[in-house]
């Protein structure tokens, strides 16, 4: 066996393990059953000239070829899941922010430049890395504040913001906090066609409000959260087809409500998991146990504070990921916080019971050496989960920057997607996903 053959064998094996045991859909046998031998051998007396038979046979073969080609090429039905969204396979697309410059200027021989984290967003097919869409903010907007995708893989929503030149002599761009955010929606049809259009929301939002977003699993509803920490906390759910809006509020002192994209909705599009972030007047995020509000969006009422509050025992950080079946919350667990002089920091990703808030199991542990990181920045981030939370896509599960992949039990399989790894690296380098603009602009499935 040559080194090349060894390498090929090992890497084919590793690549094939992207398809994990237990993730194969059930066999769907045709209803008509097998064709018995006696029927196939039954002959019909020939009544046509031989050339017509030959022509008909050729036509039949052609028809069968087309039928087989159609059958093989058509997208197959996925196993049904609550809400009509499949959580069994890998997500078809991923979106990630691309950094870019918005400003470059030379003053007295010195070149000044300034960039933004999300100059534009690319969406690629997970299977082959092919670019499906590149979405840029429309002028005069020049960056994205946040974006989110639906679990159905077919819908993405973007909030575009504007940076303006700071004329006070700082030679840099600053976030325009007055111009309303511009929302856009991208829909990908089953045939692969993309439709990007403006998405007018019932209420005007600005970058100063730092809204976080979460599309319902089927992409029909958009949840928006903002306010709190001295202001009224607001959670809205907007039905995109009709612009009809429901709103829940909680007056001060209320925490800032935080939505984490795919991790905010249960698969039936009913329960919204809302993180609780306490920001001090000084701007510092208060450290404390993770608390989550579970808002039943189908129940009557408008009081956000009346929704169920779950405290995750031993968890740190201001948000966690709810599994689509609504039974578990996944978030940062324990850890040794960074302190001056300490060179090692550790932590873990915990799976918690929604019912009791108790820790059910530790999904992955991490340890960093030589560089302290605030635990509230949530080093390990869940980007996607199957229905029950037994299979996750996680960023930096072991504290190594730029590492993204599947976590099944305690087994980690890296995703061979350089763009995702790069986006995760950039996210990690820029305060764990929350940028100065306040929006999550890492990557989303």
């Amino acid at each position: 066996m040559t080194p090349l053959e060894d390498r090929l064998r090992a890497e084919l094996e590793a690549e094939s393990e992207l398809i994990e045991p237990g993730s194969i859909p059930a066999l769907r046998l045709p209803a008509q059953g097998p064709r018995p031998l006696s029927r196939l051998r039954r002959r019909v007396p020939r009544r046509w000239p031989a050339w017509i038979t030959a022509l008909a046979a050729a036509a039949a073969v052609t028809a069968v070829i087309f039928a087989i080609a159609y059958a093989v090429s058509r997208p197959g039905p996925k196993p049904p899941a609550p809400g009509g969204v499949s959580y069994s396979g890998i997500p078809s697309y991923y979106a990630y922010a691309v950094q870019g410059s918005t400003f470059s200027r030379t003053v007295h021989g010195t070149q000044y430049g300034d960039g933004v984290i999300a100059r534009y967003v690319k969406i690629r097919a997970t299977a082959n890395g092919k670019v499906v869409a590149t979405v840029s903010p429309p002028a005069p907007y020049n960056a994205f504040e946040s974006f989110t995708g639906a679990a159905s893989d077919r819908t993405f929503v973007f909030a575009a913001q504007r940076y303006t030149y700071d004329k006070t002599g700082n030679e840099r761009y600053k976030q325009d906090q007055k111009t309303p955010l511009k929302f856009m929606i991208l829909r990908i049809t089953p045939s692969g066609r993309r439709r990007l259009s403006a998405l007018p929301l019932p209420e005007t939002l600005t970058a100063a409000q730092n809204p976080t977003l979460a599309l319902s699993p089927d992409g029909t509803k958009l949840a928006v959260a903002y306010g709190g920490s001295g202001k009224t906390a607001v959670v809205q759910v907007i039905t995109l087809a009709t612009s009809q809006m429901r709103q829940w509020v909680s007056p001060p002192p209320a925490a800032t409500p935080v939505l984490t994209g795919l991790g905010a909705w249960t698969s039936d599009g009913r329960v919204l998991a809302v993180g609780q972030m306490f920001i001090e007047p000084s701007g510092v995020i208060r450290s404390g146990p993770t608390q989550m509000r579970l808002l039943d969006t189908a129940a009557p009422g408008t009081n956000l504070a009346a929704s169920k509050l779950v405290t995750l025992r031993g968890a740190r950080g201001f948000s966690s990921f709810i599994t689509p079946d609504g039974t578990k919350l996944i978030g940062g667990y324990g850890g040794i916080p960074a302190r001056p002089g300490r060179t090692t920091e550790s932590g873990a990703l915990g799976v918690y019971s929604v019912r009791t808030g108790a820790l059910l199991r530790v999904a992955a542990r991490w340890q960093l050496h030589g560089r302290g990181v605030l635990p509230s920045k949530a080093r390990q981030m869940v980007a996607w989960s199957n229905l029950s939370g037994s299979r996750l896509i996680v960023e930096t599960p072991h504290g190594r920057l730029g590492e993204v992949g599947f976590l099944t039990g305690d087994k980690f399989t890296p995703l061979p997607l350089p763009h995702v790894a790069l986006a995760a690296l950039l996210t990690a380098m820029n305060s764990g996903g929350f940028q100065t603009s306040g929006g999550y602009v890492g990557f989303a499935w």
Partner: protein
Amino acid sequence: MTPGSDGADSGAEDGGVDADQAVTAVYQEHALGLTRLAFLMLGDRQTAEDVVQEAFCGLYRAWDRISDHANALGYVRISVLNGSRSALRSTRRVPRPLAVPAVASAEATMLATEERRETVAALRRLPSRQREALVLRYYADLPEQETALAMGVSLGTVKSTTSRALAALGRMLQEEL
């Protein structure tokens, strides 16, 4: 309904029950491996799952006509390979190599460890027959004789195709270094 057709239908139902159980058992045992094989051929999980489903539906429809049920895996493996070829032809969707972004040196260092991505990308640039030969020999671990049977070619063709594929793969990987 005539008595004759009654008999034919009930016979089909009886056969259907047996075939249901037998084909489902084969599926449960081998679906993962066959889906992985199709995935390596196609680079697309959804299409791979569809191809495997179609292959097992074909096995189910043909169950009563197959004389050697013990070789059901061989039959369905050939169907999966045929289905993979058809999928590639019909969609004209030759698996593309993963694009490498232009990145700064720090990121390039991070990405440099992704040997697997390079190998798989190189594999997917090979002609489908060469890719088939490598996947069957080095992933499915089939001996040359069984590879020949699965590909529907002679033993000599398997040897020469595998040799050419390895040489091409080696060249591509060398170029990427």
